[in-house]
């Protein structure tokens, strides 16, 4: 159900995504993340078009982490920051971070490839139903995303909404 991708640029690292629906304890999960009991980024999946979007954000975060050029204080918050098309950190958390009342959450973990990840540690903490990560597209709020990323109709004629989102994320530093 989870999705793990080994980062081509950082061969010892992998990114694992887990998606939960019908979540009843989002506030508690957020607290766990703050306290480090969950060492991952908690994301609001309605702002995601596809798991690829998260990979792009995670890869960029790891890269900046390695060279000491992150804009935020931790790798997990950098992932959330990278999902936004602009450079406002609190806005990034508002839009892409998990909020107390959310009933779905996507957990992103960056870990050593060989490290035996205890996914059960995460599932045990979530009061909710784990579903395949690909189902994220059934939760997507397309309207909100189009508005936030300022995607034009013209643009969606030559590419997908995912293309539009990824392109803006990748180059936001110079826009």
């Amino acid at each position: 159900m989870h999705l793990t991708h080994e980062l081509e640029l950082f061969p010892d690292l992998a990114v694992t995504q887990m998606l939960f629906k019908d979540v009843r304890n989002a506030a508690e999960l957020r607290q766990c993340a703050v306290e480090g009991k969950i060492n991952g980024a908690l994301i609001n999946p309605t702002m995601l078009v596809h798991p690829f979007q998260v990979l792009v954000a995670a890869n960029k975060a790891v890269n900046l982490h390695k060279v000491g050029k992150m804009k935020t204080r931790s790798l997990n918050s950098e992932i959330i920051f990278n999902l936004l098309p602009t450079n406002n950190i609190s806005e990034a958390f508002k839009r892409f971070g998990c909020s107390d009342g959310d009933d779905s959450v996507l957990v992103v973990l960056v870990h050593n490839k060989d490290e035996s990840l205890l996914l059960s540690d995460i599932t045990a903490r979530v009061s909710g139903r784990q579903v395949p990560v690909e189902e994220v597209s059934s939760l997507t709020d397309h309207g909100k995303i189009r508005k936030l990323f300022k995607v034009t109709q013209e643009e969606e004629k030559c590419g997908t909404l995912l293309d539009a989102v990824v392109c803006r994320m990748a180059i936001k530093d110079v826009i």
Partner: protein
Amino acid sequence: MAQEKSMAVPEFLSKAELIKQGAEARVYRAQFLGKPTIVKERFRKRYRHPVLDEKLTHRRTVQEVRSILRCRRAGISVPVVYFVDYTSHCIFLEDVVGSSTVRDHIASTQQSDSCKELVRLAQRVGQILSKMHDEDVIHGDLTTSNMLLRCGLEDGESELFLIDFGLSYISALPEDKGVDLYVLEKAFLSTHPNTEALFERLLKSYAASSKKSSAVLKKLDEVRLRGRKRSMVG
């Protein structure tokens, strides 16, 4: 972790497939985040002052990705940017899988003598360039190698992509757009012999696709004239 230079990208590229070694950049093909990807790496020029070199290389990288977004917004097909590393000056782009350059396409079609198709292609190029100029994007290096053609899967309609925006900039001046076309004309006619008529069709379609085209084509005429005078003197 300290402000060290990461070796991640160079190490990754050492295992990638080099597909072009140019004067300014190396182009690689690899798998990245699970997708077929083109990596364009701008390298140092030893003869340039290091600080100036760094600045110029950075600027090219920035110009390239900015123009890509500007074109995409206008609905012009250009590869998606997946990732940019400003330390190694690398752009990770969508690989337009199954495409060939317009240059190769024209060369092979010219041999098989399918004129009608080439005329249609020239018209599409004219259209897309007028759209690009309407967005005030000046490409700066228009050649048929910097256009890709991907044959459509279902409908048979093929898709035309613009690439290589490293020398691009933003300008609304008809003069700049005229020079852009002049650069293409020179490259086009020297790469593809006996295509004067074909290039005329391209310009005709450019003219028909935008309200601003007449001022640009007037400038193109002036630039041509200047070019001729210069070659008479020099």
